[in-house]
């Protein structure tokens, strides 16, 4: 406990967190769907902040074109599975954080079994189909999820399926209902992305997750935020369930 106190003293000293909030953070169980740019940033901060249990699901391997934004990985990791490398690096940095890696693809058939072991999901995936699997499974498991998606210099951020006594939960499909698109929505490989962008937005996701875990601040649960790194603008949009 002395080590724990020393490590997190600057965070415990915040009135909004304190020892009670810190205990909640240490007991929290968070699953990252995807181990790309958003996840690398949020994982580093969640582990550093003292989150006790982290899961990472990703079936992809590290490529050289990932390295400008996926800051957990380096040249010697090329060709290795992202989920396994992320787990190894986080456990070296923060041995008190238990990390479980799932080197598989999240699909409807495995999502429920995996999600049941977690309290919060962080959506760091790179496609909309997986996002609907996350939504469906979070509804079944009755857990919130911290959504983000990026495009070139822009990002979206929100918290879905987050219930409060005064407000009904908003869902991703309240904003973007399932539909057949004439043009596919491009991912980072297709559209390009500024390396720093997922670092900023993944940090914002970690911040939302921490607020949910420890119960402080205002959760971004009834609006979707558009962020533009090119012009440094935030554009929040209110969503009614």
């Amino acid at each position, binding site marked *: 406990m002395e080590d724990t106190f020393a490590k997190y003293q600057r965070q415990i000293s915040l009135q909004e967190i304190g020892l009670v909030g810190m205990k909640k953070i240490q007991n929290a169980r968070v699953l990252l769907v*995807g181990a*790309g*740019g*958003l*996840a690398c940033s949020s994982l580093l901060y969640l582990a550093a902040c003292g989150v006790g249990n982290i899961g990472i699901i990703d079936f992809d391997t590290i490529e050289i074109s990932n390295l400008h934004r996926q800051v957990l990985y380096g040249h010697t990791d090329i060709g290795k599975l992202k989920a396994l490398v992320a787990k190894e690096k986080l456990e070296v940095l923060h041995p008190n954080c238990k990390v479980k890696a799932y080197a598989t693809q999240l699909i409807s058939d495995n999502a429920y079994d995996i999600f049941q072991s977690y309290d919060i999901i962080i*959506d*760091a*995936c*790179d*496609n*909309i189909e997986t996002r609907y699997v996350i939504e469906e499974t979070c509804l079944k498991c009755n857990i919130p999820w911290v959504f*983000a*998606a*990026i*495009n*070139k210099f*822009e*990002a*979206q951020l929100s918290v879905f399926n987050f219930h409060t006594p005064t407000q009904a939960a908003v869902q991703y499909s*309240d*904003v*973007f209902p399932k*539909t057949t*698109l*004439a*043009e596919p*929505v*491009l*991912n*980072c490989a297709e*559209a390009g*992305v500024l390396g720093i962008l*997922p670092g900023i937005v993944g940090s914002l996701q970690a911040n939302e997750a921490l607020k949910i875990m420890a119960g402080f601040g205002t959760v971004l649960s009834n609006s*979707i935020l*558009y962020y*533009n790194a090119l*012009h440094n603008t935030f*554009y*929040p*949009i*209110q*969503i*009614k369930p």
Partner: protein
Amino acid sequence: MNETKSIQVKVVAFGVLQEIIGTSSLQIECLPELSWVKDFLLQSYPGLSKQHIQFAVNKQLVSDNITLSEGCEIALLPPFSGG
């Protein structure tokens, strides 16, 4: 257009929708119905018809046609995919 009922609104767009329109914002003169603005934009920028677009008015997401007021801000919102 019925001149007596026309209003000025600001349209802002994000992501690929901004690329199709060619600017981050524009002022248009329109009838005070969101459906009128939607039709105008689709006719003026045919590339929008292939995109998934949600609309917000004065930073409030809207799914139905609503009456617009002078000077309001209409946002065109695309989904993003990358992570």
